[in-house]
């Protein structure tokens, strides 16, 4: 058995479930996590479906309608915050490509700070709505609206917590295989929030303002 044959088997031909030398830990784990992200997207799908159903005027139950609770200008500011945080994490991944530990940490730290900007704007928006009496329990429509807003906000909180953990791990463990696959999974998670936000912004905030 020549070395060349073995190498070909290792890199190209071994199935990913192989526990032999060809086992590509990083590729297996990112694919697994990506499938999990798609099942998370099914959660968003269910919530969007509920929002479509409860978006009929009768479900406002005489309370505030979407034109009163969806503020596109506030949401656009949130878009800028979220996309900027996603970009900062992307820049951290460009630093990772060259193995620059300091650059990775700088990018993640920036992504965390900017994500707090998004969270602040999000909480401010929700507080304003609650003050004007648009509470989740007011109507079926508002329940569906707030559930989507809270579910997305929860993702941002989880993302911030995960980035804080990775900041510590990059500092303490360095760019080991385990740290790298976690950074790549976090990239999938964080960048996917930008895609989900496109739907939130378009169908919750913009669509809500024109109905």
């Amino acid at each position: 058995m020549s070395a060349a044959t073995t190498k070909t088997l290792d890199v190209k031909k071994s199935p990913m479930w192989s526990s032999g030398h060809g086992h590509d830990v990083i590729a297996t784990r990112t694919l697994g996590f990506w499938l999990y992200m798609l099942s998370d997207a099914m959660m968003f799908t269910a919530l969007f479906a509920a929002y479509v159903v409860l978006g009929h005027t009768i479900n406002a139950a005489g309370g505030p309608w979407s034109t009163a609770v969806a503020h596109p200008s506030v949401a656009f500011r949130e878009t800028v915050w979220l996309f900027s945080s996603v970009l900062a994490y992307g820049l951290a991944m460009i630093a990772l490509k060259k193995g620059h530990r300091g650059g990775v940490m700088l990018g993640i730290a920036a992504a965390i700070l900017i994500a707090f900007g998004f969270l602040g704007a999000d909480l401010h928006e929700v507080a304003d709505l609650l003050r004007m009496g648009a509470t989740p329990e007011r109507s079926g429509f508002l329940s569906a609206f707030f559930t989507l807003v809270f579910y997305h906000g929860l993702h941002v909180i989880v993302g911030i917590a995960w980035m804080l953990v990775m900041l510590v791990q990059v500092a303490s463990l360095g760019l080991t295989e385990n740290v790298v696959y976690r950074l790549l999974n976090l990239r999938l998670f964080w960048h996917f929030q930008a895609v989900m936000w496109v739907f939130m912004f378009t169908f919750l905030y913009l669509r809500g303002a024109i109905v």
Partner: protein
Amino acid sequence: MTHSTDNAWNHPEAQLASGRYIVAYIVGLALMGLSFGLVEKHAFTPLGLGIAISAIGALAAIVQCVLLLHMNLSETQIWHTVALVLFIPLFVLAIGLTAWMFHGLYRRTMMMPVPHASSTAPTVAKSGA
């Protein structure tokens, strides 16, 4: 990349990162800004606006999937792309069929006028109640 002696960041998936993230950022913000501007200016009829922002939103999502999530047919990414492509019909059908079923239900069952106590309630119901 399969050996612990190699630097883990040399893995093909870590090497996918590129300056295209900046392009994704600019294009994403530009498209969302365009949708925002159209809605703020009431550029079209409500139906036209709905179609326009849906199309722009779909375009923005595709751009981000390609540039941010690296959806392509390369050896490292093909299965990520296949999983997403198979997910899209589930996404569309789950929302579309639910909307269709309840739209039919509302049309057949809501005989009485919708009570609107608050002035913030809409003046025009989409399906005419």
